[in-house]
């Protein structure tokens, strides 16, 4: 790779706040965005807890699109994107995307009504990507990835690849996710939903809470960012990707594939394991994930794992599925900026298998030079992305 890549913009729409700093300060003070689910009518589902954003869809605009555009505006922070539009790319991780529209259509049809076929036909997962591209006036590459829960982290990786190769000057990457009945019912029938607030890495963890929100990053080459005097949050070093080839939904019990993804991220980022101070973990609070992930961290980092801080944003936002990787990245980027790790909430009784410093209860100030962000998905799909603190060099 020929060019260094930096993050110069970050926008967050979350269940904690509709902006970046509001979200971050709430995270550091130990607040969570979880509460009773009111967006969806699921009368027969047991206890419903979710990370719900204080926004609603508009006519002809899904909630995903609204949240993504709002996050983009914050990430741009007034930047008027100029230059060659063919050197501006948009890469998005998608989860539910237009699924609520399809659900509504199916429900109408089952009730014998006509439904909104035109709206449904044009609500594909790439709709958000196109909306962001139009807002930017970009004519460069666009990619919409649906890797389930690792989608948006790979979108960030794609943006990094294009910029590092010198093919683009600027890219917007991230993800947006809205709550919908299909995902709630799906995880519920898999017995993966905790009716109470989730407890990542805890001995008594009982599953995930679903969440929604959007995170958008502006990434540029270092040269381009310096030339325009941009505020630089952190540097993107590279990513690793792997498949478990183990089970359609369950992770490899010893984190074999996840460890390979993390090791690949270290290699592409030219990092030694001892340089990693933070892992922004997938940390879903499902019994299968958290233990396997901690084993994977130990496997990838070796003895350095003993001094690394681990945190899970799922304890604040729930599992935002297609946007989850981008949320994890946002937490890592802000931790690198402020040199403080956001806490894993409700971690009172750690599972012995999760015998790492999982940042229980309170934020932790510490030296953070580099961070890995993990996102794992159905199909045994593993992603890990590396960021480095920006120290002005």
């Amino acid at each position: 790779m020929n060019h260094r890549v930096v993050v110069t913009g970050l926008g967050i729409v979350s269940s904690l706040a509709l902006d970046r700093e509001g979200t971050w300060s709430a995270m550091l003070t130990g607040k969570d965005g979880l509460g009773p689910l009111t967006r969806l009518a699921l009368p027969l589902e047991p206890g419903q807890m979710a990370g719900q954003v204080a926004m609603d869809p508009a006519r002809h605009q899904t909630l995903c699109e609204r949240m993504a555009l709002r996050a983009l505006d914050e990430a741009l922070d007034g930047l008027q994107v100029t230059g060659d539009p063919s050197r501006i790319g948009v890469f998005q991780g998608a989860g539910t995307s237009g699924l609520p529209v399809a659900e509504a259509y199916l429900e109408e049809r089952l009730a014998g009504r006509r439904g909104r076929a035109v709206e449904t036909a044009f609500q594909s997962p790439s709709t958000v990507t196109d909306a962001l591209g139009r807002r930017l006036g970009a004519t460069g590459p666009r990619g919409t990835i649906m890797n389930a829960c690792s989608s948006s982290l790979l979108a960030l990786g794609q943006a990094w690849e294009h910029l590092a190769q010198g093919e683009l000057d600027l890219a917007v990457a991230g993800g947006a996710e809205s709550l919908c009945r299909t995902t709630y019912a799906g995880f519920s029938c898999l017995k993966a939903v905790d009716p109470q607030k989730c407890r990542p890495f805890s001995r008594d963890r009982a599953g995930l809470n679903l969440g929604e929100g959007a995170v958008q990053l502006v990434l540029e080459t270092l040269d381009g960012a310096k030339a325009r005097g941009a505020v630089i949050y952190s540097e993107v070093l590279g990513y690793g990707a792997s498949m478990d080839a183990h089970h359609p939904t369950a992770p490899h019990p010893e984190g074999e594939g996840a460890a390979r993804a993390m090791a690949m991220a270290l290699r592409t980022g030219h990092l030694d394991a001892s340089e990693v101070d933070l892992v922004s973990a997938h940390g879903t609070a499902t019994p299968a994930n958290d233990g396997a992930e901690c084993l994977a961290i130990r496997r990838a980092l070796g003895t350095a794992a003993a001094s690394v801080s681990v945190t899970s944003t799922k304890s604040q936002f729930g599992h935002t599925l297609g946007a989850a990787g981008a949320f994890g990245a946002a937490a890592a980027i802000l931790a690198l900026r402020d040199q403080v790790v956001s806490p894993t909430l409700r971690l009172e009784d750690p599972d012995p298998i999760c015998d790492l410093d999982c940042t229980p209860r309170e934020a932790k100030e510490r030296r953070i030079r580099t961070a890995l962000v993990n996102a794992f998905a159905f199909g045994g799909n593993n992603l890990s992305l590396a960021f480095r603190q920006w120290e002005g060099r």
Partner: protein
Amino acid sequence: MTLPVSDLAITGLGLVLPCGDGIEPARQNLASGTPCFAELPASLGLGRGAACASFNPVGIIPPMQLRRLDRPSRFAWVAAHQAFEDAGLDPKGDATGAGERMAVAVGTLTGGSEASEAFMRPYLQRGPEGASPLVFPNCVANAASGHLALAFGLKGPSATFVDRENAAFAALEQAVRWLRAGLADVALVIGTDGLFPLLLDVCRGARMLDRHTNPEMGSGRGFLPGEGAQAFLLESREHAAARGVKPRAMLRGLASQSSPGITGDDRARALAGAALALGAVSPDRRIGGANGLSRLDDMEARLAAVHPDWPAAIHPKCLWGEFGGSGGQLLAAALLESADRTLVTAPASSGAQFAALLEGVRLERT
């Protein structure tokens, strides 16, 4: 944007198409130009389309697994099986850990949607007791890549793209990047889609379907949906040579351009820009992505008008249907007739427009 591609070889091809499974039925069908549309069975939807009626996974997908797979995953599995055989690779039988160096990139428009309908229909009617934990895992678009990883022991990078008509091209681009960056030695690129009732219902309700006859470029009557999967194995020329495998074709260029707006002019300029980005191309064979819907056909027509020197394009979607691999059909058609330079243009109703240049396409490998 043009992705520099210097030495990537396509060494394996696998096809599940409405005209049959495998390369020879596809070659014959493309040569004859016979459309594959017919009235669909009710299980796939009301209306006409190009279904893979003769699809036969027996002996390839074990019965226990077959039950758990959605339609796009079944197609993808069989196409991948053919492609590995065609390329002389046995990833699961390789004890050297080669699977860790094999990537999978999938493009699909409908992947996960068939399962979502199958999951939600009983849920909306009966509540949680109607929800099937066996169906839900297939509701994600990347279900196929997970099943392929399990089936063939693939442990390298994986991504699934859902960029409408050109998802398979987005997958191809990602695969090229992984190979170029040294993150994999071999990449399996798949385009896969399956028909399902809600898809037909939505498209018919949106008046996108040709209601009278077979789709025809420039007719403006609409398209007809199709299904199927196409699998392509990519590796560097050196890697293929070391294995003693002769390429089916060399991928010489891949370019994409997006439109800043939503007008037909915007999209047409983007497609022309993608083709132009491949350089001064003088193709001796052309594959296009017209499907009978004005939105896509206009882009191809404008491109042809600007390049009267190019040979007339073959439009496989007018034989095999739209959605039948999210652009993979076009790449497949490009590999079904020997030619020195085959240009593929792939218009899409949104997102990036793609163009690809294949050189040295050889149907016979001796």
